[in-house]
């Protein structure tokens, strides 16, 4: 008898992705180059253990701003996203949403910084616009996947609007609500990260403190941030929402005025290719510089990082989910697991990469590990929660056998679904690691803004957006080929 060689599409796809990631890893710079990392690392540890809440200027105010930007941004994007979700049958709307969500909020902020300066509008719009695109897509999917039976029970001739308001909406509403809570958590993270480029949120102080090695201050800022996210379910009550929104509008520092002429100048001059403004410059040279010297190496590095980080995320997820799974661990150990996962997923990947960069020196390794830790903790949490629904046979094996032969095969498909869903997110996140000096497209965008060359920045951002849309499309193809479904709660 000859051995029959058959492999499932699932195994084949896994193999292909592993292969691609392996090739990417071979060509990536993964060296550890530091000579003396321990001195700095021991200072970091000492600082983390001795948080100092009094060294930051106006700490409470920046916490207030962080909340204000997140609340207003997420509230507005919910309204706009809901409206767009209703129009999602239109191809134009779908493409529009894909485009606005393919640009990272940091890039939106850098653009709005040119238009409105350090006005609160910059922060609110930077969150609202990409989030509206994401929310529109998710809400449209929720509406589409809702149970159709109640609709069929309606009498003939029911007005479409009544059918929508009284039948479809109530069913979907619970999903909208739980998704909005998740978005608010993301919004808080985004809002904090916007501080890295100058908005007055927690990130403003966090970045400075980190850069200068004031680790006790870093520790205090992070603890405060974790606390706000961990207690969200207690303070985020629906009746209180209008109150929060009004306070948010009023505490933001609206003082800075902006002029229409700045906006007009940015849109009609600054972003025009330089050779169009200065006839002595050569268009070919301009294009060559952006495409050959920046975009191509940027795209290669971005894809390398994304593919290796994607597989690393998958591997870490398989290690992380048992930490909170009742099928594999007792309640005490799970408690610790929960705390670990909350901290890992709430820490912006920028911070993780920053710490690892200090430890290992400048290569792609810190970025890969930071992305994998952050995303692995998010998916690990969702997969761990998923195992709560699995019921085991009475004669199920115990210990390692249960993990490898019972649980792992059963969570593998949902895990892959979530992982492919996050592929696009990982790609977006490589942008912000570019600002740390890892030569992804984000690095070149950041350089263009640093040189005040907005024409180049816009071309590079557009290229980043196209790359994002492509990956999103491939991810959707792979998921439908493998018939992977993400359930509504697990997005």
């Amino acid at each position, binding site marked *: 008898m000859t051995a029959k060689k058959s492999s499932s599409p699932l195994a084949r796809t896994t193999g292909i992705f592993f292969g691609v990631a392996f090739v990417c890893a071979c060509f990536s710079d993964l060296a550890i180059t530091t*000579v003396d990392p321990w001195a700095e690392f021991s200072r970091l540890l000492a600082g983390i253990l001795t948080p100092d809440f009094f060294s930051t200027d106006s700490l409470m105010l920046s916490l207030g701003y962080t909340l204000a930007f997140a609340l207003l941004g997420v509230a507005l994007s919910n309204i706009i996203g809901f409206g767009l979700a209703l129009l999602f049958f239109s191809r134009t709307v779908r493409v529009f949403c894909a485009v606005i969500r393919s640009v990272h909020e940091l890039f939106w902020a850098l653009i709005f910084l040119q238009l409105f300066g350090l006005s609160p509008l910059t922060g609110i719009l930077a969150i609202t616009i990409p989030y509206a695109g994401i929310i529109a897509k998710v809400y449209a999917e929720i509406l589409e996947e809702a149970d159709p039976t109640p609709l069929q029970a309606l009498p003939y001739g029911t007005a479409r609007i009544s059918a929508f308001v009284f039948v479809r909406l109530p069913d979907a509403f619970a999903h909208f609500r739980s998704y909005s809570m998740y978005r608010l958590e993301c919004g808080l993270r985004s809002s904090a990260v916007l501080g890295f480029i100058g908005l007055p949120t927690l990130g403003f102080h966090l*970045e400075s403190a980190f850069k200068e090695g004031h680790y006790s201050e870093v520790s205090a800022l992070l603890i405060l941030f974790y606390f706000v996210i961990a207690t969200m379910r207690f303070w985020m009550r629906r009746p209180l929402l209008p109150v929060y929104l009004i306070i948010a509008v009023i505490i933001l520092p609206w003082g800075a005025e902006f002029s229409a002429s700045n906006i007009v100048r940015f849109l009609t001059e600054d972003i025009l290719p330089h050779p169009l403004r200065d006839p002595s410059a050569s268009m070919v040279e301009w294009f060559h510089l952006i495409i050959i010297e920046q975009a191509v190496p940027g795209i290669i590095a971005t894809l390398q990082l994304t593919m290796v980080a994607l597989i690393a995320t998958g591997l870490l997820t398989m290690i992380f989910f048992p930490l909170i799974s009742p099928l594999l661990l007792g309640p005490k150990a799970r408690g610790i697991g929960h705390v670990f996962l909350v901290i890992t997923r709430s820490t912006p990947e920028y911070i993780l990469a920053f710490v690892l960069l200090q430890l290992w020196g400048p290569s792609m390794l810190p970025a890969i590990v930071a992305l994998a830790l952050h995303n692995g903790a998010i998916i690990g949490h969702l997969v761990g929660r998923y195992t709560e629904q699995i019921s085991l046979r009475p004669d199920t094996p115990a210990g390692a056998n249960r993990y490898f032969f019972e649980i792992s095969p059963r969570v593998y498909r949902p895990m892959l679904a979530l992982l492919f869903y996050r592929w696009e997110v990982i790609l977006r996140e490589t942008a912000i690691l570019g600002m740390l000096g890892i030569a992804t497209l984000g690095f070149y965008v950041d350089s263009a803004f640093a040189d005040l060359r907005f024409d180049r920045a816009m071309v590079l951002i557009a290229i980043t957006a196209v790359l994002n849309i492509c990956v999103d499309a491939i991810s959707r193809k792979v998921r439908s080929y493998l018939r992977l479904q993400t359930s509504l709660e697990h997005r």
Partner: protein
Amino acid sequence: MRLLSSFIATVIALSVAGGIGSADQARAAGKFVFTAIPDQDESKLRKRFGKVANYLSKELGMKVEYVPVKSYAAAVTAFRNNQVQLAWFGGLSGVRARLLVKGSTAIAQGKKDPFFETYFIAHSSTGLSYSKNFPKGIAGKTFTFGSKGSTSGRLMPEYHIRQAFGKAPSQVFKRVGFSGNHSRTVSLVQSGAFQVGATNFKVWKRGLKDGSIDPKKVKVIWKTPGYPDYNWTIRGDVDQSFGNGFSKKVQKALLSMSDPDLLKSFPREAFISAKNDDYKPILDTAKLLKLID
């Protein structure tokens, strides 16, 4: 009931927040605002320049405010968009700002700023030591600049590297990084994350004095020739907005700053007058390196 409680809470919130809001508005009227590039010790910027704002308020007899920014580019943008009217720039950021805002002028500089220097520093494990001539031995090492928009941390070191090797830094070194600011360049080279770096000589000297630099781990291997660097630049339209002769008044206030505590925040011994032409070498170098079109 729920609606009612929500309504009451809203009213309370409005009145509380209204108090904060009105204080905010009072601030917005008729103030003169300045910023400074975040070249070192960012978290102390507010403390350092808050004092300068108080001094200027007193000298000019009006409300003067300092706005912190995160990057050199943000300082230039704020100046260009008239969100600040005065700024403490580096050589390169000052040149960029004056190109973008017609009529703006450099009015003051530190006493030693016409002869600013960049130090090339190396981790002791490289075995490199101080030399009078450009240290060609740095080729093939890992190298970090400061901020992408810095004169002493980017422009001048890149110029000398290109002069010495005839190649771009990315072709000379194994790895090139941008640390973000001068104090961080020193700490990255000291930890060995990068083998060689270029930093502002004032930041180096201060680090030696306050003990944050360990001379056993990191040392100076080369000093660039002097070049003009930091400067106070003011917008050309301030005389229109704040009254005739305002620009001169600001210049006088800056030049007569004598309190050592204030000057320490820059850190400078004293300020002397400056003019746009003083920075011509910087403009030419930036054009040569294609950092300015």
